[in-house]
């Protein structure tokens, strides 16, 4: 039950900055997702929090205590690694016991806690097997049990679902969320999968190139992205981003007016519209249909504009599906976002 704070933390690996000036707060009991493409610094931030790497500058606090100089074992944290990192020569039970043995807990309490942790992840029958005899999903649960048994202040999770196949991933995702809500332990969760982020996190921190882009609740990030990167990263599909112009407060794609803005500027912009806020209609900007992906409940119509940019339009199942190669016009039905063409920052 703890707060975590990153205060202007930076990390440089031999001349290359992996993380630049990260300042972030994690509230007590919250599951915060660090989201971004590979190389964005999210794993670095997690490892710095764990104490597996030293910060180049800045400080990290857990419950207002400066832990920046502390060893991992003194930070009262538990970590689930991407590859689970189970000790192959020990049984499941011994794996889960290991952290408690290091803390020199009395035998009776140790046994009780281990049994409790094993029961929580439903591994009690497999307690005497070795990791080599378990399936991927089972190993992941052992890693979870080993983390839970410590009752730490903070859970750290490094892409724990990425080694599981798709169906198992969905199920385990829900299990982890339920577990976290039930135990109420502050959790920092790293992933590159925005679906995981949206469904699991209380808040999401989007990162790119070592810099924090935006942090907030999933829907807030979805509806009010701070820049083009966040807008394009969240959602499936991500927000459509097309080159356009702002002419005295009017938003144009090519020569077609698509909306108005409260900002009465004139400059080059990137126009962002979500797939569900577009429809194929008699008026709008021109595009050619590339392919119509029929997903069951919806249809994603992938089009290409005159400037060879991709636009996806979401249609409900019953609407007429255009043919490949057909020329269409697309009009917005909802919010139109404007981002500065060069900086990516949102204007309106």
């Amino acid at each position: 039950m703890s707060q975590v704070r990153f205060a202007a933390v930076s990390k440089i690996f031999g001349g290359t900055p992996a993380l630049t000036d990260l300042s972030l707060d994690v509230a007590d009991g919250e599951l915060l997702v660090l989201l971004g493409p590979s190389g964005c610094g999210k794993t670095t931030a997690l490892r710095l929090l764990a104490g597996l790497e030293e910060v180049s500058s800045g400080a990290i606090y857990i419950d207002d205590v400066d832990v920046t100089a502390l060893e991992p074992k003194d930070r009262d944290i538990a970590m689930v690694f991407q590859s689970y990192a189970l000790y192959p020569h020990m049984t499941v039970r011994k794996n889960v016991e290991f952290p408690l043995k290091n803390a020199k807990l009395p035998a009776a309490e140790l046994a009780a806690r281990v049994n409790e942790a094993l029961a929580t992840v439903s591994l009690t029958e497999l307690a005497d097997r070795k990791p080599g005899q378990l399936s991927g999903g089972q190993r992941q649960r052992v890693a979870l049990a080993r983390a839970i048994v410590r009752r730490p202040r903070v859970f750290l999770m490094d892409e724990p679902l990425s080694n599981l196949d798709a169906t198992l991933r969905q199920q385990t995702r829900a299990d982890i969320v339920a577990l976290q809500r039930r135990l109420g332990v502050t959790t920092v969760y790293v992933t590159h999968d925005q679906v995981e982020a949206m469904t699991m996190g209380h808040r999401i921190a989007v990162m790119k190139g070592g810099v924090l882009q935006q942090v907030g609740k999933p829907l807030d990030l979805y509806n009010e992205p701070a820049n083009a990167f966040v807008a394009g990263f969240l959602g499936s599909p991500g927000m459509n981003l097309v080159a356009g112009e702002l002419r005295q407060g009017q938003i144009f794609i090519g020569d077609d007016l698509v909306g108005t803005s409260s900002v009465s500027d004139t400059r080059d912009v990137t126009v962002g519209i979500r797939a569900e806020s577009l429809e194929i209609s008699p008026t709008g900007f021109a595009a050619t249909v590339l392919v119509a992906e029929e997903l069951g409940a919806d249809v994603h119509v992938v089009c290409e504009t005159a400037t060879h940019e991709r636009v996806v339009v979401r249609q409900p199942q019953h609407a007429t599906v255009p043919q490949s190669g057909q020329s269409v016009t697309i009009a917005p039905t909802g919010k139109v976002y404007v981002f500065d063409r060069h900086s990516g920052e949102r204007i309106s």
Partner: protein
Amino acid sequence: MSARASLVPGGSVFRRRRDGWLGLALVLPALIIFAGFTYYPFFKNFQMGLFKAAPFPNLPSHYVGTAQFTTMLGSADFLDSVKSTVIYALITVPLGVIGGLVMAVLAHQKLRGIRIFRTIFSSSVVSSAAVAAVVFQVILSPQTGYLQALGIHLPDITSSPTWGLPAMALVSAWQFVGLAFIILTAGLQSLPDEIMEASRVDGATAWTRLWRITFPLLSPTIFFCGVVGVIFSLQSFGQIDIMIGTSGATYTHTNVLIYAIYRLLHVSQNTGLAACYSIALFVITLLVTLIQFRLLERRVHYAH
């Protein structure tokens, strides 16, 4: 596309008829060498051992069947030789393996300039038996001050029945420690990083981590290193030849199997008995290797 090559993993890639000829041709050179200079001589030992040498050189040996072998097994010379060999190995191997292990663990730290230390730790690998012998002669000699500075007063090892063998085993141990370091470092480097990190997060001190995680996971490599060490010590010849042989002193206390074979061959021209000793040497080597495999079987199945 004419190549009907198989793309099955683990299966051979090239399966055509004439590829088979190429395969045999590629294997042939090594096969010839092994057949002529490894297998043939090995089996020839058994044949030679059936013949006992005549009391005078240049007279033909006569057939005695396995009697020579069985006599040897009971002879005092042979048993002394085996005893010396075993003691030699018992000094060389533990010293080498433990020394190599300590160095490997120390050199595994992420410190600046650790590469220099790694080179130094593996450096004994370059010294030949002859060079090592010559150097240790200087170090261990009563005429130089190296030992005396440490407060050790040894008599001349070439004439000392108690100290001759251990001294030579020490030389072998030093020679072996560099190789042991290389093998064990390779083993350490193949341990997954994430497991080590997990143990750090799980509260293990460096000491706990070493004993409860690193060593158990490293044990197959340690065994392998031990076997290499035993084979190395059984083959140690040059040190003895230079330190004792050239000085003209011949003491049975340093008559390890390999040296006994040499003397039988070179000095007494007793080929038949030398062949018997060679067979004994092989059996001992085989036993040690088999024991290692047995011990390994039990420990390997945890590694996925």
